């Protein structure tokens, strides 16, 4: 499947390669090598480290608001130390700051960690490596993609330091709350910065996604048919397509909001009386915003989860020493999920006043998604069935992902049913659902990916024992935090309440909130194990061998060095699918994709 472009690149590279040998060193400045690099491996590391920093910020925020929810009115030196006297006077969290924290926590986690961080890191690292390409189709656009991401991260973080506080209308920023500075202080400059940051983020995401799609379609090495691609690549490809189709809608959604805020248009606003006067806006509708927002918002959750599922497919198969079960069904379900994700957005809007008939259509399409999701879950379980499971930290996190995907997925069946949604809509039942199915699963997938591909990222190995400790504290605390929230939802506790103490009907739920917060604090502290392991191993970890996990995919055939163009000689040729583990009649329990088929040997990927 070598394209003209690829061949041209190949020739150019070979020439370049000879040139390198003549001089025996690379004449690249520090800036072009580590800062404005166009190398997919460097860009991948840049995305990862930025995302890790953003994740720490979002996690500290969650600890602050969890303290408030468990012990409202108590004074915490920690809160005062983090937020200062303005937002944490005497160690008590300010109600406006509470809303700002939940807003920015959600925004950072969904967009900066689990979209930019997850796709940015692993699509960049693995697409060229696993399809056998020298680099991304456009190294320059790829570099721009990271730097737009960086700028948008900086703008988002800078909004934490302005006098009115950051955006605080919830991560879904529904107008009019987000449109009217009179409604909430966070809708002043904070919201402007939020919108600016997201607009730049979308540019970053689009540049990245277009690059991923083009690279996967055009730059596969000889023999790498679509049906021989590892499931990681399939997941990244579909994710990128979802991003290209849905992020522009978020852009227009945000743009109209910018118009309403700054240029007095009325796309989303009508009949509003606030701050002691009626506003001029007539004829707009907040429902329009909700439609536009969720047209991105729902594919977005699959943009978050699909890469994690792709990563774990690869890790579970490798560490079960067994082919992924139902490779084609897995591809089919990735595509089905991708397609369906575009026609289900209305299930976020059953209670918004949207026509109930429209609601019923969305009930139908939404529940259909359960089918490919179930196929994926069962295929994972069948993959480990009769395997020879190697418990690397990455494998443990992958098992954790399957568990949380199922545990959080089943409550989706409840919420997709509009009748049942009436009473739990916007309650903690929803918070529990999406944190488990999307938050935990995706973050587990990300951890799994980091542990598994750390040797390719930093040429060193992470510490296994610390990895084990990190996994166990994380999964125990994660379920300890999010499982009890279902019961808050059953008691009718609305989300985004600064405190529940104004309602006697919630007084008997104090212990639930305390348990959640205790787990949240321990869970947050235990991420220190990961951070230490991550940064320590980056510099002092053991040197990685060629193929530590005895894996089949192409990235493990490149030398354990970061060289320009990935392979020193010719690009490898692919002869089989990626999942020939424990194939009968072979002496080893893995057969890399570069090993030619023996006469008469069948290949699962070659049809």
């Amino acid at each position: 499947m070598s394209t003209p472009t690829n061949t041209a690149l190949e020739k150019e590279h070979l020439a370049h390669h000879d040139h390198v040998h003549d001089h025996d060193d690379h004449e690249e400045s520090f800036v072009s090598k580590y800062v404005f690099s166009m190398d997919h491996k460097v860009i991948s590391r840049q995305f990862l480290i930025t995302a890790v920093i953003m994740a720490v910020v979002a996690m500290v925020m969650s600890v602050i608001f969890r303290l408030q929810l468990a012990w409202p009115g108590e004074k915490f030196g920690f809160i005062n130390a983090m937020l200062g006297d303005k937002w944490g006077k005497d160690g008590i969290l300010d109600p406006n700051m509470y809303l700002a924290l939940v807003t920015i926590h959600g925004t950072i986690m969904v967009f900066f960690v689990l979209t930019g961080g997850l796709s940015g890191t692993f699509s960049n690292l693995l697409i060229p490596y696993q399809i056998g390409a020298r680099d991304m189709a456009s190294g320059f656009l790829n570099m721009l993609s990271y730097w737009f991401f960086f700028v948008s991260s900086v703008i988002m973080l800078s909004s934490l330091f302005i006098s009115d506080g950051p955006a605080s209308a919830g991560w879904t920023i529904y107008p009019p709350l987000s449109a009217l500075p009179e409604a909430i202080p966070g809708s002043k400059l904070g919201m402007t910065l939020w919108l600016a940051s997201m607009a730049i983020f979308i540019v970053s995401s689009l540049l990245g996604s277009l690059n991923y799609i083009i690279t996967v379609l055009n730059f596969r090495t000889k023999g790498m048919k679509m049906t021989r691609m590892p499931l990681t690549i399939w997941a990244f490809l579909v994710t990128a397509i979802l991003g290209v189709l849905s992020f522009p809608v978020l852009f227009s959604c945000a743009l109209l909001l910018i118009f309403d805020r700054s240029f007095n248009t009325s796309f989303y606003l009508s009949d509003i009386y606030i701050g002691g006067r009626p506003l001029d806006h007539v004829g707009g509708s907040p429902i329009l915003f909700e439609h536009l927002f969720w047209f991105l918002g729902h594919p977005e959750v699959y943009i978050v989860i699909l890469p994690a599922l792709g990563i774990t497919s690869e890790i579970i198969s490798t560490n079960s020493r067994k082919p992924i079960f139902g490779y084609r069904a897995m591809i089919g379900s990735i595509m089905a999920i991708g397609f369906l994700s575009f026609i289900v957005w209305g299930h976020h809007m059953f209670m918004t006043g949207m026509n109930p008939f429209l609601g019923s259509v969305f009930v139908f399409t939404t529940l259909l998604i359960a089918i490919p999701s179930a196929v994926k879950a069962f295929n994972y379980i069948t993959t480990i069935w009769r395997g020879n499971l190697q418990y690397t930290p990455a494998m443990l996190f992958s098992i954790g992902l399957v568990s949380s995907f199922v545990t959080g997925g089943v409550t989706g069946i409840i919420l997709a049913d509009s009748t049942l949604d009436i009473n739990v809509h916007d309650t903690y039942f929803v918070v529990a659902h999406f944190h488990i199915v999307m938050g935990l699963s995706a973050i587990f997938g990300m951890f799994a990916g980091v542990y598994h591909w750390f040797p390719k990222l930093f040429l060193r190995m992470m510490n296994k024992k610390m990895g084990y400790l990190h996994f166990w504290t994380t999964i125990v605390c994660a379920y300890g935090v999010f499982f009890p929230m279902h019961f808050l939802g059953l008691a009718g506790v609305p989300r985004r309440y600064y405190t529940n103490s104004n309602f006697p009907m919630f007084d008997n739920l104090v212990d639930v909130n305390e348990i959640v917060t205790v787990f949240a604090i321990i869970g947050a502290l235990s991420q220190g194990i990961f951070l230490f392991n991550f940064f320590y191993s980056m510099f002092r970890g053991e040197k990685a061998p060629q193929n530590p996990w005895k894996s089949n995919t192409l990235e493990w055939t490149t030398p354990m060095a970061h060289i320009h163009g990935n392979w020193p000689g010719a690009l490898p040729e692919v002869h089989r699918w990626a999942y020939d583990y424990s194939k009968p009649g072979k002496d080893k329990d893995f057969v890399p994709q570069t090993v030619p088929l023996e006469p008469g040997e069948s290949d699962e990927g070659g049809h």
Partner: protein
Amino acid sequence: MNLLVLLAIVLLIIAGHQLLRVIELSRGLKKTKEWQVSDHDNNLMGKALLLFMIVFFGFFFWQVNRWMDRSLPPAASEHGVKVDLLWDANIYLVTFIFLVTNFFLFWFAYKYRGNSKNKADYIPHNNKLEMLWTIVPAIALAFIIIFGLKYWNEIMDPASAEDKVVVELYAKQFDWTARYPGKDKKLGETDFRQISGSNAVGLDTLDMNGNDDVLVKNEFHIPVGREIELHMRSRDVIHSAYLPHFRAQMNCVPGMITYFKFKPTKTTAEMRKDPYVVKMMAGINAQRAKENKEPVEFDYLLLCNKICGASHYNMQMNVVVDSKADYILWMAKQKAVKTLAAKN
């Protein structure tokens, strides 16, 4: 004192650094690398995963046992009873799937934990199995969809009863106002431009239908056994009228009117005698006693359930469900807008 703490931290860092050095140096002496997964590791982790499943399921049942009877009381509305029925059917089904799937996952994780003597089976796919777990969920979902939509269409049916009671819930940052149509059974037209201190909900002064409308704050009454048709409006941002005991909820959106209707089946007085509620209130009052707060009685509530600003967490209104006779008496005591205006 601070100096001592600083010194201790510095010493700790040096000790940690030395420890790491020792570990790093001892690496070279070992045959197997730290990162390599041994049979011992696999055995330990496999067993740990099984243990985790037991603890996880134990935690699940512990929570159900401890917190289930703190969930909302049985529905106090006609459609709510059906919602609860459907809820139960679905929740039992998904709990079953949750338990069975997690069981197989962790059981296999334990049973097939790696061993250097073993080899995995080569099972790339099995069309029959894959058909099975495509078709079975599809059938189960068909039932879920059919029943869900049946109830949904009933609940959202726009047709309304002859003797319905219309109540408008008017939301603003951060309180609720209820408006009744008065004797003419017609809510007066509104215009947001006419909102003022004495015209809080923006009644259109040109529309005579509004003259006998009744406005109440803090608490509104509705009769038992009659259909209540809620009309919802908002003055500023999106709010959501959430009446959890009736299984009723609808957003209040500026610029439009939204609707929800339900028929209450138990008066507030009856609800206060309901065994489930009595037990629940005992628990709530026990907790309040611990915090030196006054005991409370059960009340139906209207909550705001859409983020609306700083005091979102305190935007509430009491709801009282009266017997039909009591409701008429209560309504007779309310003053119409026009009378109020005349007084002013």
